């Protein structure tokens, strides 16, 4: 991933502030909509959990708390990395009259930090997979009862969205490398990161619901 393609004049026009607002508004409404979807799942979780006397129900091999905590930390780290990447890119945009040197540095920082975020995101996915695998190996299956249904069901739905979000992050990574996205064309990256942060928040709630409270 060299910076040379980014230092050359971007073949695509710079996006207007208006276009940024349009796209971000759309993404915010989308996240609002998806909050209702995950909200429904959480509501179901809370209602069904309320009916069970002891939680977690006895006699079930529970998912690994250390593993889940590590996954949470990794996920939060990936969000931080994406946030820093965007900050670097925005700083590159503000560097007026600073020539290609500052822009190149900004672009390199953007791509590198984004890669860290993407990498940590993939690490989260791997840890999630391990969490399920360990649980299934211990004999806890989704059809065994309510706790198992809730755990597997909710984490599956979350994971499906994480998979799509990872594809979006990958798309942006490739775009940064090709010069499609950069300081002057940032909104797709910003909105992908926004969705990623949302997925982050949903995971934190899942973590709190299953492992803390």
């Amino acid at each position: 991933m060299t910076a040379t393609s980014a230092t050359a004049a971007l073949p695509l026009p710079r996006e207007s502030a208006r276009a940024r607002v349009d796209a971000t508004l759309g993404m915010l409404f989308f996240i609002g909509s998806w909050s209702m979807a995950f909200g429904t799942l959480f509501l179901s979780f809370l209602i069904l959990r309320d009916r069970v006397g002891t939680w977690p129900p006895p006699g079930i091999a529970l998912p690994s708390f250390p593993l889940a905590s590590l996954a949470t930390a990794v996920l939060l780290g990936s969000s931080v990395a994406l946030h820093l990447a965007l900050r670097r890119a925005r700083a590159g945009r503000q560097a007026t009259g600073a020539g290609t040197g500052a822009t190149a540095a900004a672009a390199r920082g953007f791509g590198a930090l984004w890669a860290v975020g993407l990498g940590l995101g993939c690490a989260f996915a791997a840890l999630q997979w391990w969490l399920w695998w360990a649980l299934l190996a211990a004999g806890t299956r989704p059809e065994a009862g309510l706790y198992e249904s809730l755990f597997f069901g909710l984490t599956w739905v979350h994971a499906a969205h994480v998979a799509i979000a990872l594809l979006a992050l990958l798309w942006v990574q490739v775009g940064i490398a090709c010069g499609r996205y950069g300081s002057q064309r940032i909104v797709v990256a910003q909105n992908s990161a926004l969705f990623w942060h949302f997925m982050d928040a949903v995971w934190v709630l899942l973590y709190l619901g299953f492992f803390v409270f």
Partner: protein
Amino acid sequence: MSGDHIHPEPTTFLRKHVFSFDHKVIAKQFLWFGMLWLLIGGVMAMMIRWQLANPGQPVPVLGALLFPRTGGVIDPASYNMLFTMHGTIMIFLGLTPVLIGCFGNWCIPLMIGARDMIFPTLNMLSFWTVFLGGMVGLWSMFVPLGASEAGWTGYPTLSTTVGTQGTGETLWAVAVFLIGASSIMGGINYITTIIRLRAPGMGWMDMPLTVWGLFFTAVLNVLFLPVIGSAMLLLIMDRVFGTAFYVPASLLTGGSGGDPILYQHLFWIFGHPEVYILILPAWGIVADLLSFFARKPAFGYKVTVGAMFAVTVLSAVVYGHHMFTTGLSAMLGESFMLLTMIISVPGEILFFNWLHTLWKGSLRLTTPMLFAMGVIFVFGLGGLTGLYLATISTDIFLHDTYFVVGHFHLTMAASALFGAFGATYFFFPKMFGRMLDERLGKLHFWTTIIPLTVVFSTMFVSGYSGMPRRYYDHTSADYLKPLQHLNVLTSVAAFVLGASQLIFAWNFVRSRWWGKKAVDNPWEIGTLDWSMPTPVPHYNFKEIPVVHTGPHEFSHPALKGRDWIPQTEKLPA
């Protein structure tokens, strides 16, 4: 992404007619798609009515084709599939694509002065997603054990694996999920477009009420479709992976289980806003049409907007009136009852605003106007009967009877459908460059509204007399035998109603290609869409218009020689 510059015109057949980004083409795709499914759903209704009026008799013509194993007779399982798919198809694959997909797409950019929707790719995807949903629904009818039998509401535990085996129910849930996804995409598009792409001078209170109705519908879509999406996901997981969200105890292991009533809550948290999703566009269209054809401003424009807003907000907190018989606590039930009665008030306000728009107007009784006036009647009648269902003490008896069926068909099917018909007759000249035949249109109107009123009013009588819905054969129960003549009357009127729609179908197809050519503004309307030439160029507005006037400035005293003024002109001093 913003609608500022003019994109080059598409050249290939695929880009022009199949994978088009042009909101006008997508609107027409939704229209054809929706009309086709309305036909399929309508034929199903005819079969349901046949069975109810003539239990156990082979269905003429279609019977041998569709039910060969039983010699043309609809067996109980097939009957269940018929009422399930009729409801699902009419709502999700008929009304939604026509009212929201077609007229949302057609009207919004043109009426607000934009070149296209703000997210054209998302728009195209939204059509093909609903198309895919329709295909999955169609597929579900051909799997070995047939389509879903659990009603359009799909309550567990009937809809989980013990109640309905086979893939039909699962595919039904997948289809609903996909169709919901399509509407969410459309909703995000409509909301953002209306917020961001209004032409200069087009304030929120200068938009036609059609756009307001579509705006609120989009808000409800975006907020509440995800709820049913999640509910369907949980149902699919229960059916496919044996999870226990809705089953009282895990079937495979006998372990702890979930709650079937949870599904009802989730379903109706979506399901009630859904009915407002279907009626809001029709309300907006009717308010506009009445003004247009009374040559008078829409009475109480701001109050109408406020009423639509109130309905949107309240729609979230009334859903429990579908669940009065599930054992809700008395306090909860009474809260829902009170809120349901309150939500009827905005509808009543709209009713009076419509009447006041007509009062002392110079009425032009064209076909679109007749349908708009028809909505006042059917919605008024249907809405009044809702009050008996809102009241818990009467709802206990009326729940799951034909009273409910009559109520929702009048308020939803008749009102929303009349809104769609009115809009079709109205926008046809701009969409297709030709007029729908006016005499056939008027014939269609009268031969629809009269039998329709008979069909659904008779249902109030049969329902009040205790006739349950979703029964295969009412004559199998002794206490229902005396009501069978009501079934026959309803069915005969329904067959007339069904046949009348052929008038519309004939009119539509014939006029589409051979109808009288339309002038650019045949109805003499001042909204921005009618300022366009016909056919509308792919970029809509060469120059983005600047708006100076409201949408309903008819018969203004200062106007000389004409009773209307385009929104781009200033009113004379």
